[in-house]
Structure formats: C-alpha cells, structure tokens
C-alpha cells in the first residue's frame, strides 16, 4: 500500500514534465528564424546564442541567424563578447560549448560574466506550435542590435504561408464551380425537354 502511494506521489511529480514535452495532437512546431541584420557592424565581437535553463546551452552564431535548437521552455538570448575575451577552442564541438561548464543557472551566469558578455537580444521568440491546418509556414524575425542596450522586439517580422492555402481555397473553389456547372447543365437539359 505504501509502495502504491509512493508511486502515485512520484508519478504526480513526473507526469506533468512528461506531458510538457508532448506536442498537443493536431499541432506542430513552427519554424522561427531570428536574423541579426547589422551583425557585420561589430567586427570586434563574437555573438553567442544563449539558451537558458532548464536546458541551458550556448552556441556561437556563425552567420547572421540564430540556430533553431533551443528547448521550448528555455529563454533564448543573444550576447556579444569581445573577440579577445572568447576562447574559440571552447566551441570546437560543432559550435556548442561543453555543457558541463554551464550546467546550472549559476554556472551559466558566471561563465557569461567571466567573458564580460553583454546581452544584446533578450527573450527571442523561438518556439511556437500551430494547428496542423494552419497556413503559417515560418516566421522570420529581423533584429537590429545595439551593444549598449538589449533589444526585445524585432524590427521587422515576415510570416510565410505554406501550400495549405491552395488546399483550403482552390479545392473548394474547383468543387463549387463543378457543382454549379453540373446544376446549370441539368437545368438546361430539363428546360430543353
């Protein structure tokens, strides 16, 4: 009996976390791209994509775009680090920092403080689910960065639509045209008789 209570007690703690990682049926994640439009204006800086706890990781931004790989419940920030402060050897593993260095919130803060990193983009949109029937294909956010002040809102957002537009519009449209033509033809035949 005690074992059963203990199991129920444990399950009540574990199950919400299990459920949190499941995508609601009928929904799928949307691709969100975050671009930094003026990254070339800062040749003395490297830019780090910081995915905060509960699943922290840091990666080096190699182009003008953040990577889409960040845990859905993590806050995504971008930090600027002076080139002479960052050891690129730390990012040899596919551009990702060894996770042991940033396994806790405190380690992460210490690591970034140690580099003198400056947060330039805060709380980037990086995870969103939409119904399977949604016509949204992807979201592209364009940010302009400023080393002295973090930017929260994108300067421009472009949302692309997928081919479902054709499914929702053209199939019913073709069907209704055929139905109308069929009924008209039938009526015409009836009148001629």
């Amino acid at each position: 009996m005690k074992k059963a209570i203990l199991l129920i007690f444990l399950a009540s703690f574990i199950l919400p976390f299990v459920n949190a990682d499941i995508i609601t049926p009928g929904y799928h994640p949307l691709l969100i791209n975050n671009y930094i439009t003026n990254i070339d204006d800062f040749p003395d800086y490297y830019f780090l994509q910081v995915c905060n706890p509960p699943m922290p990781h840091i990666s080096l931004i190699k182009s003008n775009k953040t990577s889409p790989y960040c845990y859905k419940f993590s806050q995504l920030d971008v930090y600027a680090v002076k080139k002479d402060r960052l050891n690129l050897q730390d990012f040899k593993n596919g551009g990702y920092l060894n996770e042991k260095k940033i396994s806790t919130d405190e380690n992460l803060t210490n690591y970034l403080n140690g580099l003198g990193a400056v947060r330039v983009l805060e709380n980037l949109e990086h995870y969103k689910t939409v119904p399977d029937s949604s016509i949204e294909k992807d979201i592209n956010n364009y940010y302009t960065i400023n080393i002295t002040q973090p930017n929260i809102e994108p300067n421009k957002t472009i949302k692309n639509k997928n081919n479902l537009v054709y499914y929702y519009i053209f199939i019913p449209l073709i069907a209704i045209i055929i139905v109308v033509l069929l009924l008209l033809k039938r009526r015409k035949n009836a009148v001629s008789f």
Partner: protein
Amino acid sequence: MQLVFSLIITLILEFIVYSIAIRKKYFSLLAYSILINSLTNPLANFFYGINYNFLIIELFVFIIEAFLIKFLVSTNYKKAIIISLIANLLSALPFAFFFR
C-alpha cells in the same frame, strides 16, 4: 498529409452512406461524394484550425451537404437531410474522438 487522409476517409464513409440510402448510380454517387466533401472538408478543417466550435462547424457542414445532396442526387429534402445527418455523424464521430 493528415488533411488529405481526413478528406479521403470522410468521402469514403459518406459514399457508403449515400450508396446504402440511394442504391443506384454508384459511380455518380462516388463523384458527388468527392465533390461535396472537396467543398466542405477543407473549409471545415480551416475553421477547426482557427479554433471554431466543432459542433457549430459540423452543423454548417450538415446543412450545406443536405442542400448539395438534395440538388445533386435529385432527392427530396427529407431524405437529403437524413442522408446528410447520418453521413456527417458517421464521418465526424471518429474524428471527434480519435483525431482531435
């Protein structure tokens, strides 16, 4: 892909109902089933996608299909309404329970 699957399942189920109810011109009934469901199914899925109420959408689908059955199959209103009701109950229930 899931939407196309939903459309195919729906039109097969509704074709079966039309065939049992009308019992003639099976090829025409299949064509009507394709036409009717190509009109209502994508629109219904679109409105589900923007979180409209399932029952309200199904009610609209039922009414539109009843009219289409009446005029395409050349039957009376009473029969068209009964066919539409059974066809939509049959096609909507599995999706209401298993796919949503």
